[in-house]
């Protein structure tokens, strides 16, 4: 009981974290069509900047300032890096961000060193929120979930209350026509990219002290966030949200399942010995394969439903 409950709770909170990480990417990737490989790096920057700020003037200012800083940086990147590349199509854009991610890691190491930094959880958010049975649920996780939901609401408002979404889609196919109708396309692109980066930064502020703030932190979240976006479906925020929850719960519950194909056979009476073909394969437990499930999901989705869960286009 306790176990299943907390597994579920963990699943949801992990899912929300994933959403927090990928929401910015959804914005950029699925609306502007730019596969922003530097997204994870912006996440890392957010963490480091927040670390510096919070060590000076505290966590709460950092919660606001760090994302702003990262957002501005993102805007700059779009303005001076990506905009001129737009006409060459997606691959150069993608590779630009690719190279950028290299640079950012190096700069981070130059400024903050190679080892992990001590970015602590603020006292008022440290400690357990409630304790069920014997397991306690940390405040900070709750806070994380809250922020993730806030993000969802925020983006949703922007996309529904304004025409930004439409303009971007329009500009993707016919930028000139969109401009001729009086839309300042370049500026919108810039701010969307900046906004996406800011979201990544915010995720960093919060993920940074929940986990470890180190130069490798970008690499570790690198591809999973793409999985979320793609599985959710291009151009669909709700999709990304559902996908994150799905993956979160899926992965955490999988960890709980120590069954392997072999054990299954065992229960059906058939015995599996090292002699039997694919012995290794059969002995992999679901728990062990938890990490690859998202990618499996990705491939399957793309084959059978290339639009993604709630996607509108391929």
């Amino acid at each position, binding site marked *: 009981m306790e176990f299943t409950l907390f597994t579920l709770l963990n699943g949801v909170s992990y899912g929300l974290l994933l959403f927090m990480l990928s929401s910015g990417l959804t914005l950029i990737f699925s609306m502007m069509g730019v596969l922003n490989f530097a997204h994870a790096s912006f996440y890392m920057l957010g963490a480091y900047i927040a670390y510096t700020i919070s060590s000076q003037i505290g966590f709460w200012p950092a919660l606001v300032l760090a994302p702003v800083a990262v957002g501005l940086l993102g805007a700059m990147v779009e303005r001076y890096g990506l905009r001129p590349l737009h006409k060459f199509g997606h691959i150069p854009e993608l590779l630009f961000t690719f190279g950028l991610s290299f640079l950012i890691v190096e700069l981070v190491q130059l400024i903050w060193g190679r080892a992990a930094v001590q970015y602590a959880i603020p006292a008022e958010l440290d400690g357990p929120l409630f304790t069920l049975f014997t397991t306690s649920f940390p405040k900070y996780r709750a806070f994380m979930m809250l922020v993730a939901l806030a993000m969802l609401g925020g983006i949703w408002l922007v996309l529904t209350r304004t*025409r930004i979404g*439409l*303009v971007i*889609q*329009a500009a*993707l*196919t*016919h930028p*000139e*026509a*969109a*401009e*001729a*109708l*009086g*839309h*300042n*396309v370049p500026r919108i692109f810039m701010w969307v990219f900046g906004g996406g980066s800011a979201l990544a930064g915010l995720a960093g502020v919060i993920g940074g002290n929940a986990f470890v703030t180190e130069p490798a932190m970008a690499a570790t979240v690198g591809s999973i966030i793409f999985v979320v976006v793609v599985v959710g479906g291009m151009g669909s925020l709700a999709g990304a949200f559902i996908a994150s929850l799905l993956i979160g719960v899926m992965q955490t519950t999988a960890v709980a399942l120590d069954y392997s194909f072999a054990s299954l056979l065992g229960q059906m009476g058939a015995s599996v010995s090292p002699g039997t073909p694919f012995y290794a394969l059969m002995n992999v437990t679901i728990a062990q394969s938890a990490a690859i499930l998202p990618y499996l999901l990705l491939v399957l989705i793309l084959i059978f439903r290339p639009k993604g869960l709630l996607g*509108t*286009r391929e």
Partner: protein
Amino acid sequence: MLEIRNLHAYYGKSHVLHGVDLHVKPGEIVSLLGRNGAGRSTLVKAAMGQVSATGSVKLKNEDILGLKAYQIAYKGLGYVPESRDVFPTLTVEQNLVLGEKSGKRGGRWSLEDMYGMFPRLRERRAVPAGVLSGGEQQMLTLCRTLMGDPDLIMIDEPTEGLAPKIVTLVGEYLMALKEKGVSVLLVEQKLAIAMEISQRVYVMGHGAIVFEGTPAQLRADAAVRKEWLEV
């Protein structure tokens, strides 16, 4: 309304317009005729700030040359491109909505007026514009620009790919625009309607204006027609 003086336009190095002078008075329909490649589209593109050009372009006595396209649009210049640039992934209605300028309410036209003009669009309002028929796309681009409530609208070959019946319809609608006090600069291939609806016509050849006058004068002037319009 619109006043173009000594306009030179370039595509990279190739010099396409050689000092064009042209003007459109308020509430006037002016047609710009000429063979393919004469430079008509380039002219309107230049006025819209989509092609690098030198000279002077004044809208309501404001210099607009060198401004960005969206700024020009806000100053009240509308442009319907010849290549039907509908936004394929958006629905017909979304396309129209995008025509409106943010923060500029209460224009001359509403969605309903547009659907009134071309009922076909109302039927198709919910489908992605990309799947529209060629002609429907043509109608859509026209309406989309009108939604922006321009004071002067430049239309590049609107009747292209339209059924003869619709062509005459479009002619009538252009007249209607005039009634609403919108000036029109019409780039046309089909002599017939151009002659019929416009007060003045320009004929363009090799990137320069070779004739300016009323349709009547043009009808009279067989030489120009022969040299610059027919084969």
